[in-house]
């Protein structure tokens, strides 16, 4: 099992009477980037917290880097980086002080200055974290997540609140980490983000994994029907070229208002979510 970073079988979790995870199955290979997509309340964050050793589960088998996260110790935490959602801590310390301090927790940390540079905060290194904008704060979270040189990195909606430029920069950083061999599991609302970064995508809805695969595989699974619309009609077909040829013959040349559209990942995703509900 040396090429498996995360193995999850039948993971369940409830909060009081509310069952949040209904038996999640998931495998993440070493070195891959897996994006977990799903609507709000689907259980993405809950699942990540359990995998990252932040909360207990009710049932199922979980192995992360060969260890059960519910029983994991310091050595395991040193190998795992975690960026969770929304914290408002660390307000009075500067970016540089914070990153340097956290570096001291790890046996083989990255260079704090390099990490600050990598997340694009060098010019804000001497500012207090509490004085940063929401997007800048988020980059501090990312910096603290990677300072320990983790083998496995969890990112829970890491780019929420980023402007397009910051998001592009963040994507470059993730590709860099991935290129160094870091295994990455990220949750996101942005399908473009999943498409841009992930080797594979897992769609979670209502507490179960609906589908896992590459973006191409997901498309195929949803039926690779292409939507052809024109002035007088619309049709979904697996053979759009044949249909367009037929239409051209029918109209004797140019087809009025012709539009041929392949489903985006978003269409596939929305269709899956709708099916589930």
């Amino acid at each position, binding site marked *: 099992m040396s090429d498996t970073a995360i193995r999850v079988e039948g993971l369940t979790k409830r909060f009081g009477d509310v069952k949040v995870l209904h038996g999640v199955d998931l495998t993440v290979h070493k070195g891959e980037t897996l994006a977990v997509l799903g609507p709000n309340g689907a259980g993405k964050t809950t699942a990540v917290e359990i995998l990252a050793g932040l909360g207990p589960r009710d049932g199922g088998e979980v192995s992360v880097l060969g260890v059960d996260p519910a029983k994991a110790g310091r050595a395991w*935490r040193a190998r795992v980086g975690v960026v969770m959602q929304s*914290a*408002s*801590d660390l307000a*009075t310390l500067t970016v540089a002080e914070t990153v340097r301090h956290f570096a*001291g927790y*790890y046996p083989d940390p990255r260079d704090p200055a390099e990490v600050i540079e990598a997340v694009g905060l060098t010019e804000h290194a001497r500012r207090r974290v509490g004085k940063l904008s929401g997007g800048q704060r988020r980059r501090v979270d990312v910096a603290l997540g990677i300072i320990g040189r983790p083998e496995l990195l969890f990112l829970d909606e890491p780019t929420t609140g980023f402007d397009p430029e910051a998001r592009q920069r963040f994507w470059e950083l993730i590709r860099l980490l991935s290129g160094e061999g870091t295994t990455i599991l990220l949750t996101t609302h942005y399908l473009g983000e999943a498409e841009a970064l992930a080797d594979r995508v897992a769609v979670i809805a209502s507490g179960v994994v609906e589908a896992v695969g590459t973006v191409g595989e997901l498309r195929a699974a949803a039926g690779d029907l292409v939507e052809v619309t024109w002035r007088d009609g619309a049709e979904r077909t697996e053979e759009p070229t044949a249909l367009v040829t037929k239409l051209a013959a029918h109209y004797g040349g140019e087809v009025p208002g012709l539009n041929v559209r392949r489903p985006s990942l978003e269409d596939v995703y929305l269709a899956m979510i709708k099916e589930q509900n």
Partner: protein
Amino acid sequence: MPGTVTIGLSRGLMEIRDFSRDIGQVMFTFSFPALLLLMLGGIYDQHLGDGLNLSHVFAASIAASAIVSTSFVNLGGSIAAERDDGTLKRLRTTPMPKVSYFMGKIILVLVISVVELALMLGLAVLLYDMKLPTDAGHWLRLGWLFLLGVTCWSLLGMAASGLARSARSAAIIMSVIYTLLGFVSGVYIVPGSIPPVMADIGAVFPLKWLAQGFRSALLPDLAQAQEATGSWELGRVALVLLGWTVAGLVLCMMTFRWRSARTR
């Protein structure tokens, strides 16, 4: 892997830095015991004989309650706040040991308490002609009482922070406990003149014993006459403080949580 003590010292440094960045917090925290002494000393300052004034008795008792204020109220409140704002959750994702976190907190309490006591006792000497002890025995006694008091009340503060549902409820609960204990433990009242029922309640909790111990370390022996039993009862002081320290440690282990319902 960096050692628990190394990380604990680093946390302590960070706690001090964090504390020092809020000027209002620094000024009010440091001056609180001195201000209390000004109030109580301004109201009651009878001469008790041989260079001993009532204000000196208050100064010694306030020194004990200042420790409760920094370790129980401030430390407990800060842990509850850090549970609510996500600090603890973030630390949970790192290999930082839990003990290092507590070490950092206690280092901050020690630093604040030393400064507070120095300021307050300095004021007592300058304004109320208090004579501090000149022999090593009394200072040694003050030293172990100080360390035991800080440890005991810090553990109780940590335990209380785990019992409170939120930082807001923790702050008010601890302030109420602290203030009421101040009365029944004979901090704001001459120790020997507390009604028996109140004194019995006070005798259950460790503030009364810490204050009594501090009086024994900072006051001349003739002040023993002010005590309910007419004696310092140092053995009992040590016993009660140790008992509560153990209870605090157990409670702390049982109630400590990395996260609150609000940061779920």
